[in-house]
């Protein structure tokens, strides 16, 4: 893998991570809000949704970072 | 934000973007991608085979190089032995000539010494004979007065005889 493609990969990961976390929280919130409306149980589902959404966002970020380490390992193995 | 508020244009945007995407997809899949991908593949194969060929050539060249190196080394060794031999030969010749010269010189020396010896002997003999004659003559003169005529005659004869014999023996 050459340097240019490494740079692009890094850039794409940087651009991904920001939205990854926010969007997950947003989705959790929206889903919780919808469930609250349906069951008329404000604000429990919303709160749970935000927490689960945050967890999901963290999970996504964690997966992306694992992807990076796997890539690095692969590169190092290839390099040596 | 008009992107959220202008709901009335959503249908048209969705419709046309999907249609356009589908058309682009089929057109590219049909006409554009296959030839380009094919040429990519072809080039990859070509490069691969050429790299293989190059590798083979490289190995061959390496073999040739090793051969050449070996030959060069042989030639070098041969040249070295030739030089060695020539050096030995020249040394031998040199030694021989020195020996010969030495022998010659020694012989010349011997010859010269011999000649000197001979000459010296000759001279010594000559001197001895002259001295003898002289001594005899002087002795004769001293003795002449005291001897009788008969004795005189006999002694003179003897002396003459002696000198003659001497001279004869010397070949003078």
């Amino acid at each position, binding site marked *: 893998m050459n340097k240019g493609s490494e740079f692009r990969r890094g850039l794409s990961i940087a651009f*991904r991570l920001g939205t990854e976390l*926010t969007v997950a929280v947003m989705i959790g919130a929206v889903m919780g809000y919808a469930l609250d409306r349906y069951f008329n149980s404000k604000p429990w589902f919303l709160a749970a949704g935000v927490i689960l959404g945050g967890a999901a966002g963290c999970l996504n970020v964690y997966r992306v970072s694992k992807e990076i380490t796997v890539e690095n390992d692969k590169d190092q193995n290839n390099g040596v | 934000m008009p992107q959220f508020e202008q709901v009335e*244009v959503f249908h048209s945007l*969705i419709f046309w*973007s999907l249609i356009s995407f589908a058309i682009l997809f089929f057109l*590219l899949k049909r006409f554009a991608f296959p030839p380009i991908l094919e*040429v990519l593949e072809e080039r990859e194969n070509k490069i691969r085979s050429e790299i293989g060929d190059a590798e083979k050539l490289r190995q061959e060249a390496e073999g040739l190089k090793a051969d050449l190196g070996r030959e060069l080394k042989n030639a070098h060794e041969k040249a070295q032995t030739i030089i060695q031999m020539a050096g030995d030969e020249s040394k031998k010749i040199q030694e021989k000539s020195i020996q010969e010269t030495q022998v010659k010189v020694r012989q010349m020396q011997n010859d010269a010494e011999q000649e000197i010896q001979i000459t010296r002997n000759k001279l010594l003999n000559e001197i001895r004979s002259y001295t003898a004659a002289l001594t005899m003559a002087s002795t004769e003169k001293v003795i002449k007065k005291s001897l009788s005529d008969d004795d005189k005659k006999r002694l003179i004869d003897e002396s003459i005889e002696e000198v003659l014999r001497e001279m004869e023996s010397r070949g003078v």
Partner: protein
Amino acid sequence: MENPLHHFEIHPIVHLSLMGFDISISKAVIAMWVGLSIVFGLFMLVVKSGVRLIPGKLQIVAEISLGFIKDMVEEFIGEKEAPKYFPFIATIFFFVLACNLIGMIPGSYTITSQLVVTGVFATGIFILTLFIGFAKHGLHFFGILVPPGVPKIMIPIMIPIEIISMIARPVSLSVRLFANMTAGHTILYVLFGLAMSTPLMIGWLPFGFTVAINGLEIAIAFIQAYIFTILTCVYIGDVIHLH
């Protein structure tokens, strides 16, 4: 100064309707067509002038971009399945790239700055991944909701989290593209408005910024197209390999 978001409004040019739906052709649609025609035209130029083993300049560009996408597809989806998905993913890349870039021309329109459009594509890709997942693994596909190595007690919590993170994928995919394109164009618009409305003595400053940000926007157009494509690959690859 007028509302900087004003220029994202869409005004129909040719009024059309199909089965009761308004499908009028607007500036956005025309700009998209121009962009896509340029892409297709360039490809046809390469193909019609004859692809050769020793490529011309345009052919090199086409080959590099296709080779790049090919490597990406092979890396994330796997070499065996790659040829099946390559045309689709390459088309996504060129579609997004053309739409992003055509918007850089002043007076045209970036259709990817419409959330509905990016949303439709992201949803389409999401549904496609679900479809592929069920076709490939049947009911085992639900296993994607439970990551490997999770203790049994955690499963009731993990399933909602995984559902949210699954849904977050198309949403973040579409929101990212939409937000980047909208923000870039809005900044350009505001700066350009500043440059026009101030006297020349100060006006050159925002104008210089406009030029600089224009360059940045072109880079972002490429990066966003790249991210959209690579994430499509990642998502499809995920459902094919299932952990």
